[in-house]
């Protein structure tokens, strides 16, 4: 804590968390704040709440599949010698669970609504805004050495638009839910539930959330261009910034297309304009092209910031200069570029052979920049001083699960194997290994990594490690089984299945309980840290990026003086980290030599 004390008393500014006394003025202060840190924290809580809602829906889906809905037809001969057929339905577990709430729906209808709820909430309300809007909002301006994002009021607007969109979505759920799947494929989405508003509400929610996404992305691009601190060139930026920058470009360029698509879908439902309606000469496949032109790039909106977090976690917790800085930075942009050319692989069966071959080839291209990153991360670990704390364990877990997710994508990009695997549990397992085993895992690692900085409290390391282990086991048990289910022919989105699949489904469901338990442990650790956590030092991990020069938690304007960047973000071998305390971590014996 040596250098911090020198600053104490230098400025009267308090931590960004301090505010006026009185609960109402406090709430008002947060609701009207334009401080990127507060908005980041508000986003963090909002997306974690949506993660909880979506996760609950996922547990319900798995619960139903434990003992699926089956119709048992029994034929008997009665006293008169007539054949009597009786049908008994078993396994309507969701119907029993929700009781009278859903009395007018059959068990399968509830199941369809539950998985749509899971998909729509997780994609639009959790995973798209998750890392950029929460950790990005908090740390992007600090890491480039700015006092705030370029447009602070727009930033607050983006949060309100997000909340507004979530309210639309939740209203739709409360009105009975939607069973279209999160992709809203036409013509089903334009004809189902025709006399009701809930599909329109859910689509409108996705439309509104798109605005929030655009505003955040636009803000970040301008911030990175215009607000970097003196001395910070493009290649002095932390790799997290590169990743969020690439993400923001995708958000700005892809989201308007889903905007117009969903708008057309709403018009289609309300005014029957017929553009996607085959009965009027419209083209439902056009909807799928439009939808995936956004929704494929958005997959990289979900994963790129996670990759950025990975670069930070691995370098800092292995105390090692990142291997291949420029390769990682450019591969972020490369992924962003290629992401716009591969949407067709979601609709291989709805296009001509030549187009399918082209899209298949382009899809393989994605593997190149992604593999460059993974190899560079592993090379970073080589001969590093690896500390097996929670952030590092999550980073290692990412390398394991994300690699499985990435490699299992290749058979899906191959036309011949995709014909067998598409629309099966193999696809479900693949994208959960990428999205959950990639994004969510990196997000968890990032939250632990930056938790002391955000809230000024340390978390309980053994507790978090237990949570991490449960998540690792639960995740793999839940989803690895689904690869087998998929290759054996289990189609996705079905409420029931043939008896042969039951064992694997049951293992998967038990895994989901372990996974849920893991997240509950994390929740407990976070709550414990809030109320009883040790006070965090300014630089608990020995990081060199600018956020570790701030206090924990940062003051309202982030820095006491405008920072001037004199060393690279990963120069651990040559730099004494800011606020270095020997008790926190040892430093490299050569650190500081050759620099002054």
């Amino acid at each position, binding site marked *: 804590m040596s250098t911090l004390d020198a600053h104490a008393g230098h400025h009267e500014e308090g931590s960004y968390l301090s505010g006026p006394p009185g609960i109402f003025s406090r709430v008002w202060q947060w609701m009207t704040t334009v401080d990127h840190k507060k908005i980041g924290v508000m986003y963090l809580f909002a997306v974690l709440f949506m993660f909880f809602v979506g996760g609950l829906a996922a547990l319900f889906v798995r619960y139903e599949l434990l003992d699926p809905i089956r119709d048992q037809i029994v034929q008997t001969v009665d006293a008169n010698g007539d054949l009597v057929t009786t049908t008994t339905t078993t396994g309507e577990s969701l119907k029993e669970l929700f009781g009278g709430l859903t009395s007018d729906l059959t068990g399968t209808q509830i199941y369809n609504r539950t998985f749509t709820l899971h998909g729509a909430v997780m994609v639009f309300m959790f995973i798209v805004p998750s890392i950029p809007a929460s950790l990005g909002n908090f740390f992007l*301006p600090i890491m480039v050495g*700015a*006092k*705030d994002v*370029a*447009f*602070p009021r*727009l930033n607050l607007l983006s949060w309100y638009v997000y909340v507004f969109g979530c309210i639309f979505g939740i209203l739709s759920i409360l009105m009975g839910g939607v069973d279209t799947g999160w992709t809203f494929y036409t013509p089903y989405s334009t004809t189902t539930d025709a006399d009701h508003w809930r599909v329109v509400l859910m689509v409108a929610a996705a439309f509104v959330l798109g605005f929030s996404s*655009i505003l955040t992305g*636009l*803000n970040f*691009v*301008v911030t990175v*261009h*215009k*607000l970097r601190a003196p001395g910070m060139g493009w290649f002095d930026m932390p790799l997290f910034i590169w990743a969020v920058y690439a993400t923001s470009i995708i958000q*700005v*360029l*892809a*989201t*308007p*297309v889903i*905007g*117009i*698509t969903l*708008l*057309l879908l709403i*018009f*289609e439902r309300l*005014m*029957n*304009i*017929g*553009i996607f*309606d085959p009965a*009027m*000469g*419209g*083209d439902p496949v*056009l909807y799928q092209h*439009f939808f995936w032109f956004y929704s494929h790039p958005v997959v990289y909106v979900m994963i790129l910031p996670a990759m950025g977090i990975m670069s930070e976690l691995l370098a800092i917790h292995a105390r090692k200069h990142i291997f291949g800085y420029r390769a990682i930075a450019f591969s972020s942009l490369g992924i962003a570029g290629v992401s716009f050319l591969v949407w067709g692989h979601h609709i291989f069966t709805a296009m001509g052979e030549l187009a399918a071959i082209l899209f298949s080839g382009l899809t393989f291209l994605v593997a190149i920049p992604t593999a460059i990153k993974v190899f560079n991360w592993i090379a970073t670990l080589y001969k590093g001083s690896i500390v097996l704390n929670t952030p590092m364990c999550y980073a290692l877990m990412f390398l394991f699960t994300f690699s499985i997710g990435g490699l299992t994508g290749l058979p899906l990009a191959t036309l011949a194997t995709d014909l067998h695997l598409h629309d099966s549990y193999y696809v479900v397992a693949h994208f959960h290994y990428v999205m959950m085993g990639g994004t969510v895992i990196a997000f968890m690692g990032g939250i632990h990594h930056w938790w002391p900085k955000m809230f000024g409290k340390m978390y309980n390391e053994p507790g978090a490690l237990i949570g991490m282990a449960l998540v690792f086991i639960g995740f793999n048990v839940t989803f690895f089984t689904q690869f087998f289910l998929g290759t054996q022919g289990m189609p996705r989105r079905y409420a029931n299945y043939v008896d042969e699949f039951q064992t694997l489904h049951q293992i998967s469901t038990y895994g989901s309980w372990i996974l849920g338990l893991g997240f509950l442990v994390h929740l407990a650790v976070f709550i414990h840290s809030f109320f009883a956590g040790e006070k965090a030092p300014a630089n608990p991990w020995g990081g060199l990026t600018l956020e570790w020069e701030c206090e924990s938690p940062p003051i309202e*304007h982030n820095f006491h003086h405008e920072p001037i960047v004199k060393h690279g973000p990963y120069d651990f071998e040559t730099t004494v980290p800011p606020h270095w305390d020997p008790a926190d971590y040892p430093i490299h014996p050569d650190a500081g030599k050759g620099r002054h």
Partner: protein
Amino acid sequence: MSTMTDTNPIDVPQSILQSPKHWRNRVAGHHWRTGDEEFDAAKLGMWLFLTTEVLLFAGIFCGYAVFRMMYPEAWANGSHYLDWRFGAANTAVLLLSSWTAANAVRCAQLDKQFWLRVNIVVTVVCAALFIGIKFWFEYRVKLGQGKAPGTFFSYPFAHDPHEPLWWSLYYVGTGIHALHVVIGAVLFLVVLYYAKRYQAYGPTQYTLVENAALYWHLVDLVWIFLFPLLYLIH
């Protein structure tokens, strides 16, 4: 117009000159080093936003292209129902307003407060003219004849079964464009209010005028594409 300023600062009431919103008194946001940097950032943000607008309309143009390829007859017939004179009049109106919007920026840069307001008023009047022509002479008449989108289509003399689709794209495309015209006009009315009330825009502070004009040029540009694609293809 001469390049000299047309407002004599002596004639301006002290209440306006000393208002923190007057252009001479405006300061950059706390997180900016200079006002210039803030201006550059706002402009970059606006250009990015315009990119998103282009991509929004790209969806409509893409749908147009697909259906024109699938149903060329319906498109040729549909275009016959549109009167190029209304389209041309609206094109002229928008081009004129784009010129006055650009002039407004120039006037702000030169501190010509009166002409700044005149140019904005002309721009807004043009916007109103555009909407008037669009709704009164085009939408109202066509809807009255049953040339409505999708299932609302009831025009009895259609030559091609896919003409409802043509009208769908016509109404969606021009309707979303018209919405943008209205938004642009509202933006200019806001600029007009601040210009009149506080003289908020001058040589060192004209971000909002510039960005409103950029937005307006985009609205104009989209129409420049919509006009030939809808009115002039037969």
